[in-house]
């Protein structure tokens, strides 16, 4: 494949220099080996090292390079350049404060994640080896444990935009259900108490942007509806 030139429009903001954010238009010559959007970003960074973005594993495992790509959140390392229309418009994840260029401050996102006690609570003395589960019990965790906390879902959720301080958000609620669904966890009731709140859980209006954007193909909306289901079974 011949070299190709791709047009970009990239959100730039350096709070130390810029009065306000602006969109920078640029073209970049790509090598035939450049397949993913992240390859192009690395290429741009080589031309202009002032462009800031996060990236680490470059294969969809770490969740660092989440950004808004042509209006939809995704991981730059997983998206094929050739699948995008030009100019490729890159913005930081919506709804979170911008630190610089494509880097956002994830504090609020992780605060919500921490608020659901994202670890197993079991007060029995630890057995000599592991706490066993049947294969069926283990299967309950499929589609829940794979979350990489890239924040694509929560930052595409209008309910999280309006109330990021009060609504746990799809990523946090998916994690909450991951522990509610775990047979080894003993804090089911406390976890449900923690979420029974008009803001923390019930701000979800099943808009399903989260399902649309999740780069791992997970379904936070289903997890949220399972949490509501557990609450109904507990209360009725």
């Amino acid at each position, binding site marked *: 494949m011949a070299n190709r030139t791709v047009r970009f429009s990239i959100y730039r903001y350096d709070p130390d220099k810029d009065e306000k954010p602006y969109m920078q238009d640029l073209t970049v010559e790509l090598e035939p080996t450049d397949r993913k959007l992240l390859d192009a970003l690395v290429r741009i960074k080589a031309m202009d090292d002032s462009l800031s973005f996060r990236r680490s594993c470059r294969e969809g495992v770490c969740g660092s390079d989440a950004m808004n790509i042509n209006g939809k959140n995704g991981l730059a390392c997983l998206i094929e350049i050739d699948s995008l229309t030009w100019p490729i418009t890159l913005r930081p994840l919506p709804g979170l404060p911008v630190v610089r260029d494509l880097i956002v401050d994830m504090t609020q996102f992780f*605060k919500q994640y*921490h*608020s*659901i*006690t994202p*670890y*197993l*609570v*079991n*007060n029995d003395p630890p057995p000599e080896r592991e706490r066993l589960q049947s294969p069926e019990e283990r299967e309950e965790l499929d589609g829940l444990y794979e979350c990489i906390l890239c924040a694509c879902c929560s930052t595409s959720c*209008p*309910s999280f935009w*309006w*109330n990021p301080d009060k609504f746990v958000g799809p990523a946090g609620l998916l994690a909450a259900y991951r522990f509610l669904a775990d047979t080894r966890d003993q*804090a089911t009731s*406390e976890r449900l*108490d*923690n*979420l*029974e*709140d*008009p*803001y*923390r*859980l*019930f*701000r979800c*209006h099943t808009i399903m942007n989260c399902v649309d954007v999740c780069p791992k193909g997970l379904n936070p909306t289903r997890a949220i509806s399972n949490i*509501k289901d557990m*609450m*109904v079974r507990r*209360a*009725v």
Partner: protein
Amino acid sequence: MGRAGGQFVADVADWGEGMVKPRIVVGAHYGLMDWLLQRITAVVMAIYTLIFAFAVLGLKEVNQATWQALFSGGFMKFATFLFALSLFYHAWVGIRDIYMDYIKPVAIRLVLHSVTALLLIGYAGWVAQVLWRL
């Protein structure tokens, strides 16, 4: 917080002056019933819509007299009243959700909540008065 020892939820919050203290996060202990009742009232309204549609289609002609006769029956009064209560409760949860999403100042939100709730209660009384006058 450690995994053992029965400690549940502990978030870390900055309480100003750089002091970081553990914060226990709990829900407000309501929200489920509103969510559930919004769904139940939706079903009630859907069923009533069918009943109402069939009742009106069954009328030979639509005029003041047949209309009044339709609503003077005990069943129709009961069903219509139930429909109105469902509508008002459903509307309460829906409108409150909109306020919670978009109205940030607590004082304004509280006033809007109160006005909406009182209006809807007033409407419920009004519906009862209209229905039982027939």
